[in-house]
């Protein structure tokens, strides 16, 4: 009997657990495939409550982002043939499609201005060459939350607008890889704010709610770690040292916490590995983690441990 017990202990050993009573009162929105499809869920990290905002749409839903008053979530869904931008109330009502792109064009990576007037997002695919000559990146666009006033403001990937709406940070590929750029919200005054060019992508920068810091991913060894810098690129500081794929950060409204996703494997740089990841949809390889704003005490958020974020979706904190 003794040895049976020991064998049991061996195969019961597995992932470690970090609990989150410290996160009482917060809510996060993320993409989860806990129903079998990838859907948008609001999750309470302390109570474990979870609410599906896109119940069985029969489509793939991802990249959720809160409106600044927390009443609306924008996301992209392929329910209309390709990935278009949608908004939905946080009670699941008032679903509205904002963009009407056709196959071959993909929308993603939205962020809102603090006044709620604009959603900035990326468009990728064949649209790039058609609408922005000589472009080799994606298009950075904006649209009003009612679907009006669509504009292309520049070229790049992973756009994130500052809370005051004045500045967009984004990534471009230079000769040796990705770096972080910024520009004005009208597309003017493009400036490079980091210098390290790297091949792993996943830059996916975000702003702190006070607009004073940018958090982004950069390559360290074979992994991706999260960094923080000022909006002009100064005062760069490494926040994580986990040796895996740390990406898609989000800062809590009180600036106490940073959530991020941590992948065991950086599969998106290789089409075959990416295809396998999407096909297998393994539930335990992409947990959402949380750490202090200074990078202290990184650990899994148990309520977002499994079935989350096969794509680059953030676990985004609800504004207060």
């Amino acid at each position: 009997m003794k040895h049976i017990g020991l064998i049991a202990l061996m195969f019961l050993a597995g992932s470690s657990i970090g609990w989150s009573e410290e996160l009482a009162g917060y809510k996060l929105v993320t993409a989860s495939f806990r129903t079998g499809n990838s859907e948008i869920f609001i999750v309470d990290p302390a109570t474990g409550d979870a609410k599906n905002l896109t119940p069985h749409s029969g489509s793939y839903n991802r990249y959720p982002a809160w409106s600044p008053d927390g009443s609306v979530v924008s996301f992209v869904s392929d329910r209309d043939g390709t990935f278009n931008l949608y908004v939905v109330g946080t009670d699941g009502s008032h679903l509205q499609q904002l963009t009407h792109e056709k196959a071959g064009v993909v929308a993603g990576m939205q962020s809102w201005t603090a006044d709620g007037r604009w959603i900035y997002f990326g468009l990728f695919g064949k649209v790039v060459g058609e609408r922005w000559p000589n472009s080799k990146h994606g298009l950075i666009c904006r649209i009003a939350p009612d679907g009006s006033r669509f504009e292309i403001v520049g070229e790049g990937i992973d756009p994130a607008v500052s809370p005051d709406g004045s500045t967009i940070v984004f990534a471009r590929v230079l000769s040796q890889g990705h770096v972080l750029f910024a520009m004005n919200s009208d597309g003017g005054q493009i400036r490079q704010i980091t210098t390290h060019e790297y091949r792993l992508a996943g830059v996916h920068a975000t702003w702190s709610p006070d607009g004073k810091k940018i958090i982004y991913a950069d390559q360290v060894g074979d992994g991706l770690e999260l960094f923080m810098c000022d909006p002009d690129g100064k005062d760069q500081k490494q926040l994580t040292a986990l040796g895996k794929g740390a990406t898609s950060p989000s800062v809590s409204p009180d600036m106490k916490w940073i959530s991020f996703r941590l992948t065991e494997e950086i599969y998106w740089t290789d089409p075959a590995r990416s295809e396998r990841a999407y096909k297998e949809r393994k539930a335990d390889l992409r947990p959402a983690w949380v750490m202090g704003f200074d990078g202290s005490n990184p650990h899994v958020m148990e309520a977002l441990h499994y079935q989350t974020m096969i794509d680059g979706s953030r676990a985004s904190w609800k504004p207060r």
Partner: protein
Amino acid sequence: MRNGEEKSMRKVAFLLGVIVLFAAIGWAGEFQGSKIIITSVVTGDTELFVVDPYFGDWQNISRSPASQERYPMWSPDGSKVVFTSDRDGEDTYNVYVMDADGSNVHALTHVKPHGDCYFPTWSGNLIYFGYDPGDGSEAMIGRVSQDGRGFTLIAPGRDPAISPDGKTIAFTQKVGKGYPVFVMDADGKNVRQLTTHEDEIGAVTPTWSPDGKKILYSDTIGETLELFVCDRDGKNQKQLTHLGKIASSPAWSPDMKYITFRVTDYPYWRYPDSKEYVYREKKPDKRPVWVMGADGSNPRIIEALHFHCALDGSRGVWKP
């Protein structure tokens, strides 16, 4: 959007479509409108959650991080939930009742320190439960009314379940090397042994079908535990699962089309060291809730109940 991720996304677009379609077919709306109550360790302690297996919504209805909550069971009309908790004293589990939204909690029993009430089931206005006195004396089957009056220890036995008509208790008790299924009248008289095989692993957990005509239970096949069904007189015994694992704690859907049950790799409750380890570590990925047709067909995990479920023998119980 990551460059590499974007490229690979287009390549796997068709594949993704196939996967999403497959997942949708796998679910096919069969659980739409269902609710299942479970215990979960997602918050770090054990809490009771009402889960929508179709939408993936989770609602924490016990919200008591200072105590452990277990063994939830619906009232016959689904408006209330009975469960056990150690909130009035560590290592002592009493029976509580609350409204299905988690309000109006009150204790129904006040057993001696180290006493353990478990597996409450409900018929009419009476709740039947298992009771381990915790002092080495014999395990008993108890009863209390839903207003907390009339606490009675009826007869020796374990894992009781009251029939829907309130007339018959299915239970188990040790005979020779293990635990067969018994029934007796609700007053403890007229004990009859229904099965003859002595289940050495335990976790017999007999369960009545909603129409009161069938009893589900677990029995050993070699070193594994499989689910069986028989008539209320013990006739027509039929093995439903052939998983070669530890299948226990079954529950019928109200329309009797489906059976949920939990599957573990190992009967950790048999040995004090493995039981202590499992309760201490609370590994979240070892006790998924499965579902199958009532005839044992097509057993598979319910994805929304894949992780964080039930350390103890708590069932995933369908709302009536």
